[in-house]
């Protein structure tokens, strides 16, 4: 399977992550899909964490500049 493209936004990434998590909660997931989904989930988690970190960094910078 080709790697999925980068999510357009944080919200889109979280939505997809929730979908994957629900799919996994189901327990009846097709085992052939499992590794693919987990891999995608990790990509999305990494994307979200990076986004949060960059926003936090930006906010701190803005607040520092404002003082």
């Amino acid at each position, binding site marked *: 399977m080709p790697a999925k493209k980068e999510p357009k936004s944080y919200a889109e990434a979280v939505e997809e992550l929730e979908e994957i998590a629900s799919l*996994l909660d189901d327990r009846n997931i097709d085992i052939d899909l499992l590794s693919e989904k987990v891999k995608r989930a990790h990509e999305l988690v990494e994307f979200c964490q990076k986004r949060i970190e960059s926003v936090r960094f930006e*906010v701190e910078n803005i607040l520092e500049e404002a003082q």
Partner: protein
Amino acid sequence: MINHNKEVSRDDLIQEVLDFASSSSSDLEPTLSVSEINEAISMAVSEAFSEDIWVKGEIQRLNFHSSGHIYFTLVDAGKSSAPSTIPVTLLKWSASQIKGDLREILAEDREVRLKVRPDFYAPYGKMSLQVSDIDTSFTLGNIALARRVLLEKLEKEGVLRDNALLPLPQLPINLVLITSVESAAYHDVIDQLRLSEIGFNIKVINALMQGHGSVVSVVSALKHSKKYSPDVILLCRGGGAKSDLACFDTEEVARAIIAMDVPVLTGLGHQIDVSVADLVAHISLKTPTACAQFLIEHVREATEVIDSLAEEIKDKTFNVLQTKETRIANISQRIAETSYLLDQCEIRLEGYKISIKSSVKTALARAHEQQTFFKAILKSSDPARILERGFSLTTDTTGKIVRSVKDVSDGDILSTRVVDGEIKSTVNKGK
């Protein structure tokens, strides 16, 4: 007060004049010197006005002289074309006897009621009125009346609160200060604003804040201030208790304030009265210092609000980020639980294995049973068993089983298999 060059009675003076006339050439009419005529007038005046009398009129060319004396011209009120005028003098000592703030009572163009003694000053031949008292209640009443009339007029037009209704900017930093430069008011405002260490941007417009010309000066300063696009205009004048508010009671100044599109703050340095300017201004404060302090306080309050909002935004932003992070961590955790899913699959597979194993076992067992059964059947049909029971099997030399007499001929060699061996024999049909 009557001035005399020398102490002479009126009769003496007349006698002197007559003597002079008789001693001169008979064809000349009696002739007086300037001093004599002045003296004569002076005496006539003082005789005609033996007591002080009340007079009223409008003040013009008011001059508070540095000597402490006050000079002005009194004219008939409301008579603009060729009015009668007379100079008025209020000597320092008389002024000190009058109750009330003379700088507040006496003002340009103001109608006053004065107790005066007409006086002819002989040396200069100058007629004037010497003030001994002022009807302050008349003057103050007039001021109050004029104020009320103007206020009612502005109210009726619906413009009285125009400036007051303008919103005061949250951060009034760009200021125009209209005052008399280098006055106490100027220094009070500038010093206070500088001490606050708030970065006020102050433009100062110099204006005459009292006396003749002040109305034009203040109105022009207000108009001029527009080019600086200030957040707020400060109209300040010092002077403590001694104040002349006439300028700030005029319609011109009131309308100029009303016409401003930014709030005007007044600090006119008066203690008791409130001028029309104060009433049409956005906010009126007693002193220039109070004006500056009000602004400083206002900016500080706004800054505090902004600071606390900034703090709130910061906290909320980090809370949002924290929540997001927790959510991602939770999802991550759920994803990580996939190994459990794999375990489940393994368990299921193990189940399949066991079930397959048991099925195979059963199948094998069944097969074994079948085998035994067939074995038994086979066993029972085994030729050896038959031989044991006494039967034998005869074949010809080709190995073909001999089933009938017809299968053999005399002389054929047959092989007969019995339970314990083989018997060779030769056929003899023996017919």
